[in-house]
């Protein structure tokens, strides 16, 4: 970096340095500014569609993405990534909808979540015990899960077309058109992740392993245990998101959540979590998911064709990440 980064030289750091440090440690505030700017842009582009319903629609769409981005945040803190979240979320949504008419909603949920835990356990053992690179391990796992879902689709007889009423209600209904019911699921999940990362010993271990694996090992952390638990948690979060997505779209296809995988990584990155591990948090990720959702629907409202939307979407992700890297750059 050419800029002066006088962290250990200057006795009193300059205003710029303080601001940078603030931005690096608390990315939520500037990101909220960006989200607000997108809301303003939306209001200018399409004043008619603004209103309580609009808030509800945006929140409802952002919540599953935020949960999946939570999987990425946790994995990225350890220097990993979880690309199997799409496949796991899809198979859970599919299983719940398909099994529900026969065995009832609670049993279907239990069964689907057990499947997710199994997938997460295998991924965790692969990454933690066998030390396969998380990128390739989760990739291979998503092949396995996706194939299984496709196979089950042919074997299981589907009685109804949509998803169970309870799931649909949680995924798509809103209170007074503003507050989506999925907040009931999301708020506790988010609270546990944020609190867990900041205050619990397990949360600190995630940071420690990502920041310096050797130092973590020497200070007694058993990385493999942490990683196995991490990928099980990640699969559980993906399962929750899968239920919400199937409720939101009222379909239970086996590639339900495929389109969420890459945005979930992008949301965590925009939210200030370093893909190299050891730095980040869930607060930024939530705002990152909100920004991507707002951006998507803004581009949709502008009436741009799908092709242009993809180009703009990609460019903005690079631009935000680049600004981020510039501003928060450490020497």
């Amino acid at each position, binding site marked *: 970096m050419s800029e002066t980064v006088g962290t250990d030289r200057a006795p009193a750091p300059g205003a710029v340095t303080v601001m940078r440090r603030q931005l690096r440690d608390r990315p939520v505030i500037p990101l909220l500014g960006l989200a607000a700017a997108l809301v303003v842009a939306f209001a200018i582009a399409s004043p008619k569609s603004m209103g309580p319903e609009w808030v509800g629609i945006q929140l409802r769409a952002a919540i599953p993405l935020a949960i999946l981005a939570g999987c990425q945040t946790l994995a990225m803190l350890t220097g990993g990534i979880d690309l199997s979240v799409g496949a796991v979320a899809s198979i859970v949504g599919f299983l719940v909808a398909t099994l529900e008419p026969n065995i009832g909603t609670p049993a279907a949920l239990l069964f689907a979540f057990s499947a997710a835990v199994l997938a997460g356990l295998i991924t965790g053992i692969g990454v933690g015990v066998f030390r396969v690179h998380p990128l390739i391990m989760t990739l291979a796992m998503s092949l396995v899960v996706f194939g299984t879902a496709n196979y089950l689709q042919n074997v299981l007889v589907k009685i109804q077309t949509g998803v169970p009423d309870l799931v649909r209600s949680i995924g798509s209904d809103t209170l007074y058109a503003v507050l989506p019911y999925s907040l009931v699921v999301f708020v506790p999940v988010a609270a546990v992740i944020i609190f867990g990362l900041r205050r619990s010993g397990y949360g600190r271990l995630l940071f420690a392993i990502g920041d310096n694996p050797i130092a973590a090992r020497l200070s007694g952390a058993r990385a493999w245990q942490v990683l196995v638990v991490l990928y099980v948690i990640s699969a559980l979060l993906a399962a929750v998101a899968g239920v919400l997505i199937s409720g939101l779209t009222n379909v239970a296809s086996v590639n339900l959540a495929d389109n969420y995988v*890459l945005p979930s990584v992008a949301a965590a990155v925009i939210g200030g979590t370093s893909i190299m591990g050891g730095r980040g948090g869930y607060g930024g990720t939530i705002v990152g998911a909100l920004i991507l959702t707002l951006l998507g629907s803004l581009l949709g409202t502008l009436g741009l064709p799908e092709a242009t939307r993809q180009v703009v979407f990609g460019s903005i992700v690079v631009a935000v*990440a680049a600004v981020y890297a510039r501003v928060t750059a450490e020497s």
Partner: protein
Amino acid sequence: MSATTTPAGVTRPRPLEAITAWARDNSWSLGLVGFLALLFVFTKLIQPSYGATALQGLANSMLPLALAAVAQSIVIIAGGIDLSVASMMALTNVVAASQMRGQGEEYAVLVVIGVLVLGLVLGLVNGSLIVFTRVPDIVVTLAMLYVWAGCALLVLAAPGGSAAVWLKDLVKGSLLIEWIPKSAVLLIVIVAIVWIPLRRSRLGLSIYAIGSNRLAAFRSGVAVGRTKIVAYALGGLFAALGGLALTASMGVGRPMLGGYTLMSIAAAVLGGVSLAGGRGGVFGPIVAVMILSLLQTDITLVGVNPNLATVLQGAILIGVLMLGSITQFRRGRR
């Protein structure tokens, strides 16, 4: 392949020692080739009619993925990763197909050259963004995946266009005898022309150097940023070759291609390229692509449900990777 050249000034080892040393250094690749041979024997056993025609089909269908795997391997060796390979292939594929439609055979030569240059430029953009913005590779290429895919849709909204006859002939059929598929020869020629000189040049060494230790490479006077950009540009070139191979084998351009990025990473890793960078070559990944393609054929031949075939493919991938990382881990301990 890992380095096998003896350092200058050291007395040459006896031939037998040299061979065992070479075998030890390349044990992973040799294991892959052995596995491939076993797989061929197995295929012949379950399907006695498996012959020259089927071999041509195999070579034909694996060509685009093999080129994508080479593109991915070069980038991974340089310490990066390129998630936008499939999008670059889609973009070059549709540009080639849309430009060749209704044009003469000679004009198609210009189109091919133009598309290769386009591939270089796409890779150059990826690499420059990574180097100049200092955003991690995986994030930049993830975002560029959308950009290039969007561009491909802008060029051709639906499958269309056409390919020159000579281009299609280039990958169809066999050469000299029916047991040598043209596309396999083409693959070997392309890789030999680009990779072998590169591997022996200063640039090639630099690519390995920045992948295995950035700081050490920088301190030994390697232009780290420039080398990385070149590695991505080469990746773009091979992605464009993959896109052209698709144009040639499909005869049309398709703006939406799935799976090539992820399969290329899988093939690179299976082929002995370390995701940490600086280790591996391009021949291992090509063998890995052959294995993956043949495995798919076999699974279909055995009559397994195609969906379970995906499960099996993933499970085999996981098993092989676990095995590989265990052996690597134990060797590292010693």
